[in-house]
């Protein structure tokens, strides 16, 4: 039982991070139909900028806030200088642009920072809390807490504000939204900015447990993409569900089966789910236009 709880907690922690990455994918996908492969770099930059600002002597909370602002500017910049310039290009071309952006950001992090691994002090100390025989790091609770706060804030933004409604309108039909007087290009840009904010917050809160370096983005982007697809792309609740399912399945297969093949088990699960429901767990088929 203690073992089960232990795996469940580590799975939930990883799952929360995957869910946040998946939410970033979902927001951008909804606004412009693009899978943003630079999403993992937002997570990396959030962690790395905080580490280097706090090494420069800034207090941790201030460093974290500045890091989020910086990454939001990067995300908005990718939209303004790259995606928006090519907005009439095909989706695949836009995806290649995000791949270019991810290579660029990884290269920039390598130059601006370094190639070593970094960590941050835990927010609430390093003494594990023991629950039912399982040891939980306080930082894991911080990760879960931040994830819940972000999901609630995002829900409030989308569901309770006029701005959120404008983003949803842009997502469902750009032409109709622009006819209703919504600045759709700004909304797409905002989706990039919000995704960047979510990604960087995730990067900051996981750094004390998972370490960070300039090249962690690729793996996180992969996991986030897989989680978003598992839940059903374009579906915010699906992204959260997909992330949690992916994190738990990895943790349990690493614990009970083989740590070498933990990623493989998660992938087999992903394939099995998509073969059974080709639109993800919560996605719905859309009719094809001729």
């Amino acid at each position, binding site marked *: 039982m203690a073992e089960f709880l232990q795996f469940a907690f580590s799975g939930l922690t990883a799952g929360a991070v995957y869910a946040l990455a998946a939410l970033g994918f979902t927001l951008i*996908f909804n606004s412009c139909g693009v*899978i943003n*492969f630079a999403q993992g770099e937002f997570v990396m930059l959030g962690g790395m900028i905080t580490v280097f600002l706090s090494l420069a002597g800034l207090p941790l909370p201030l460093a974290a806030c500045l890091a989020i602002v910086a990454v939001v500017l990067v995300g908005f910049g990718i939209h303004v200088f*790259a995606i928006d*310039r*090519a907005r*009439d*290009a*095909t989706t*695949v*071309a*836009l*995806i*290649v*642009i995000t*791949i*270019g*952006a*991810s*290579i*660029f*950001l*990884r*290269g*920039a992090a*390598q*130059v601006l920072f370094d190639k070593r691994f970094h960590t941050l002090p835990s927010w609430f100390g390093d003494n594990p809390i023991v629950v039912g025989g399982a040891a939980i790091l306080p930082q894991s609770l911080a990760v879960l807490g931040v994830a819940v706060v972000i999901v609630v804030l995002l829900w409030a933004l989308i569901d309770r504000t006029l701005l959120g409604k404008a983003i949803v309108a842009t997502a469902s039909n750009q032409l109709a939204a622009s006819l209703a007087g919504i600045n759709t290009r700004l909304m797409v840009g905002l989706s990039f900015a919000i995704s960047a904010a979510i990604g960087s917050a995730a990067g900051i809160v996981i750094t004390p447990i998972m370490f960070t370096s300039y090249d962690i983005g*690729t793996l996180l982007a*992969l996991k986030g*993409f*897989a989680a978003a*697809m598992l839940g059903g*792309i374009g579906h915010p609740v699906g992204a959260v569900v997909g992330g949690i399912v992916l994190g738990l399945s990895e943790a349990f297969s690493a614990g009970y089966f083989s740590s*070498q*093949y933990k*990623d*493989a088990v998660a*992938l*087999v699960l*992903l*394939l099995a789910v*998509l*073969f059974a429901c*080709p*639109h*993800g767990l919560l996605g719905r088929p859309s009719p*094809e*236009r*001729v």
Partner: protein
Amino acid sequence: MRTILAHRLFPLLPVVAIVIVLPACFPSAYYYRVAALVFIFGLAALGLNLLMGFAGQVSLGHAAFLGVGGYAVAIGPARLGGSPCVYVIAGALLSGLIAWVAGRPILRLKGHYLAVVTLGFGLLLAIALNNETGLTGGPDGISVPRLVVLGLTLRTAADWYWISAAFFLLGALVALNLIDSPTGRALRAIHDSEVAARVLGVDVAAKKLLVFVMSAAYASVAGSLFALLNGHITPDLAGFLRSIELVAMVVLGGMGSVIGSLVGAAFLVILPQTLAVLHDYEHMVLGLVLMLAMIFLRAGIVPTLSRFVTVRPA
């Protein structure tokens, strides 16, 4: 003159000319090696272009087939004996078989779901190659025996330049003929609209499966050539980044353009080599160039440029 220009095999003429003339400008063996890599990745990108550019099906795991071909010529001769030549064909057949079996459930999915499932299959193979140390040598990879043909050992980069150029031309010949066949037209119909193609009597599932198997075989042969050229192979060849690179080659060169596959491969093979002088700034510049190329040549290099060159009769 116009009939020659309009002939379906015309795009091959400049490539043949370049293949013959280029070695005259090569100051060292290093250039032969880079050019051979261009043709090898051009072949793999061409196979993927058949799938992406003509049938409109994205694969984010295509490097897995590079890996199958590469490890076939590495493991086959060492374990089972025989010439690596046999295993180039065996690898292609095996890749085709894998694509045929896996393609049935995979190709029912569409768009981004297809992308993520192919991505998953590619990653599974890469994980297996990394972990089955006994067979594959694990992350360090294994060495590949030199190819001996008619008593001659092929070891110089120049030998491989001619071989990979020949393979690329052969692949391009097959591709150009396929495009102009009823199957090629059916594939383009599927690209435009699956529903419309099905209504017109195209067996959509069978055609998609056919082109998936073909593109797997292309990638496998390219993987074998890569392994034989290098004399060593690591799981990186089958990794996610390679798959992404192949997709970028296809899109950058031009979807649905046979010559575009070669141009895209040339771009992404040569650029990192020239940027290596920039050391730490290499990746930054590479990412920047990739973004700029896609922003300004959004239909791909070859289709965008050929629009300027083509003179339309009034």
